[in-house]
């Protein structure tokens, strides 16, 4: 197992290296200049001279040849220093760190919601295939797939506003500090995102269970006289979980950086919003670090999925 971990860790290196090179140079190909965006985007009547812009470019190191910029950044990144945001001048790691807790919490809550809903619903739907139970659950999940989560978020907000004249808190409070305040802010985006997420997982679980129920070993179990409930719980569930775990894992990784619009709707100060802002501001260093962060997350989640696979499936464990 240790070797497996080491192996996977080493495999991360070329992946992330490729991502680093790609994102750096692709960003430089984009039109738009961080300094112009910062100084001219909302010019409050200041007559900003060319000299000021040039000085600012020099300060950010944008006047240097591309390869110099790259190696400076890359060398720093290797040592864990991702540089300073071109917009705020704060260390990129700081900017990300203060937003990560929120994004992680929403992702975790949405995942919990998805798992809690999807596993029982998907299983029920499969067992009662083509009955009214299945129809209702399928309606639930198809609606979840059809409704974009940001739209659902908007509906939630408007409902809260019109019914309770209340909207969730606008600023983040850590769960440790004040769980009630924390949940009253984050439960809504978690619901909005978790619904779609659980819909995807429910469908996956349903089709996975249906597929597993066709397997020969299920027939074997039935031929042994195992109760149908146990056939599903003991013989089908664990096998059916394998593809569901992948979906859930990748969806989780996506949530870390992908909640762009939903975070906007709920005014969440998360990684997704930071991403959008960084792109709008041509904050190159920030975008680079975020893309790398998300890649690391994807690689890590994949790793965790593999571990879960090994746990669920002895064929992988003993390989």
């Amino acid at each position, binding site marked *: 197992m240790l070797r497996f971990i080491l192996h996977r860790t080493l495999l991360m290196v070329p992946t992330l290296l490729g991502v680093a090179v790609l994102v750096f140079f692709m960003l430089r190909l984009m*039109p738009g200049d961080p300094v*112009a965006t910062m100084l001219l985007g909302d010019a*409050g*009547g200041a*007559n*900003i001279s060319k000299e*000021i812009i040039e000085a600012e470019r020099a300060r950010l190191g944008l006047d240097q040849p591309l390869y110099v910029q790259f190696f400076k950044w890359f060398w720093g990144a290797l040592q864990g220093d991702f540089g300073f945001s071109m917009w705020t001048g704060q260390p990129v790691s700081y900017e990300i760190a203060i937003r990560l807790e929120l994004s992680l919490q929403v992702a975790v809550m949405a995942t919990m919601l998805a798992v809690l809903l999807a596993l029982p619903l998907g299983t029920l739907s499969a067992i009662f295939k083509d009955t009214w139970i299945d129809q209702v659950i399928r309606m639930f999940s198809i609606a979840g797939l059809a409704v974009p989560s940001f739209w659902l978020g908007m509906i939630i907000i408007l409902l809260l506003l019109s019914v309770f004249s209340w909207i969730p808190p*606008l*600023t983040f409070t850590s769960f440790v500090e004040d769980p009630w305040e924390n949940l009253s802010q984050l439960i809504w985006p978690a619901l909005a995102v978790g619904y779609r997420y659980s819909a995807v997982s429910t469908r996956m679980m349903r089709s996975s269970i249906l597929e597993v129920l066709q397997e020969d070993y299920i027939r074997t179990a039935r031929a042994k006289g195992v109760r149908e409930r146990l056939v599903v719980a003991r013989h089908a569930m664990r096998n059916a979980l394998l593809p569901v775990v992948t979906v859930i894992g990748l969806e989780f990784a996506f949530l870390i950086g992908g909640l762009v619009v939903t975070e906007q709707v709920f005014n969440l100060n998360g990684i997704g919003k930071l991403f959008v802002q960084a792109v709008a501001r041509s904050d190159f260093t920030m975008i680079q670090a975020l893309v790398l962060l998300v890649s690391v997350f994807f690689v890590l989640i994949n790793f965790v999925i593999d571990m879960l696979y090994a746990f669920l499936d002895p064929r992988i464990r003993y390989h």
Partner: protein
Amino acid sequence: MKLHALLLSALALAATGASAAETPKTGGVLKFAVGAEPPNYDCHAQTSFAFIHPVRPHYNTLLKFDTAKYPAIRGDLAESWKVSNDGLTYNFKLRKGVKFHDGSAFSSEDIKATYDRLRNPQPGVRSVRQATYADIASIETPDALTVVFKLKKPNSGMLASFASPWDCVYSAAKLKQDPKFPERNIMGTGPFTFAGHVAGSHWTGRKFDGYFEKGKPYLNGYVAIFISGAPMVNALAAGEVLAEFRGHSPADRDRLLKTLGDKAAVQETPWVCSLVVTFNTRKKPFDDVRVRRALNLAVDRWGGAQALSKVALVRHVGGILRPGYELAASEKELVTYPGWSKDINKSREEARRLLKEAGVPNLSFTFTNRNIAMPYVPVGVFLIDQWRQIGVNVKHEQLETRLYLAAQQRDNPTYDAALDFNCDFMDEPNLQLQKYLSHDRSAINYAQQTDRVLDGLYDKQSGELDKKKRYALLREFEKRAFEQAYTVPTIWWHRIIVHHKPMKGWHITPSHYVGQDLADVWLDQ
């Protein structure tokens, strides 16, 4: 030596509250929304309202605008001032007993250090207002409470500049230790101390107990929440924030009023912001004045203002200066300018003729615009329709700010014509005329023209201390600018602020940059 003298007493300040009948209450924390977030903390390097709203309450400036009597100016850190008749010497008497948030005493040295930093920043320090103070020859501090500015030449805009909300007064001692100190730290004399900034989320200020105006500020503190778009309107509707100080669209105003009913108060005023059409004079056929003038003539500003005001936050017809401002052209004068005539049919006929003369009767081009719904897109659509009526075919290109700026890049502009904006922090011809100066004199000129006549008129009006004469020069400038039509104003913005009634002591002004120190704001609860 004729002396302009304006004496402002502490007593007079108290009378500037909203309704004299009400006695301000102390206490409470004001939550308000800010549509964007300041990139760093240095006033001297910033241009965005997103900076002013959360940061200005921490600082004082030398002078400030009297929001109730805008554009009247009153003292902030200066108690009184004198300007010599030749307009070359400004003598400021400073307030006694002013303290910085760290407890250190404020003196004339701090003013000098601040303005030195603004006009002549040390290497590595960024000042975007160097040009504004280029006319200052020296700053002298005869004593701890007196500061004297000597100018190289008269500058009619100088006094207003001293009231600029950007020119936060820093501690000389701190600047001496580290000229970049303000980039990362907030330390001023203002009514509120800095209590924290959660990047991406909010900014908190706490009442400064040692504030020099006794009894102020009324608020215990404020929280500026970074939120924009529909969520911001929702937050206002829910009362999570009591105000947003930039401005709302008519639609948002109506929605908020519908939701909040009599809990809301509305304040409206013309705005020192206008949308202007810029032609890339380096590109054919926009190098031909006939083409530019034709396109300018085709726009029915009077009709457009009426129609657009229902859907967008534009409403007023004006020239280069804000309609309603004392130095702006009157309606009678306006209608004489090409493009401002109320007989639109005649103008259009003329426009068609000009295009034919220029050899481009069936002109077609791309109009570059920002993809910001309010007010850029509706105005862009309006203009294109106006041009269509003289047989010009225009493609509407709506770009993200980044790309929009890139298209107008100074060295290598790629656009044909663009919808540009001119938004200033106060009414002052020296600012508003910038866009019309020659390419080599103005960083915000995207038309790329060189016109020494306009440059000369600018310099003349800037040095003209007599208001009437300056007024006449400005008319001359406008006439020339519109005849040449490198850049032409379209319709001026209209500022609408909806806030919750309990927030009091705040007055709308034509600029969303001024009057934001929150010293006079209080909560009626």
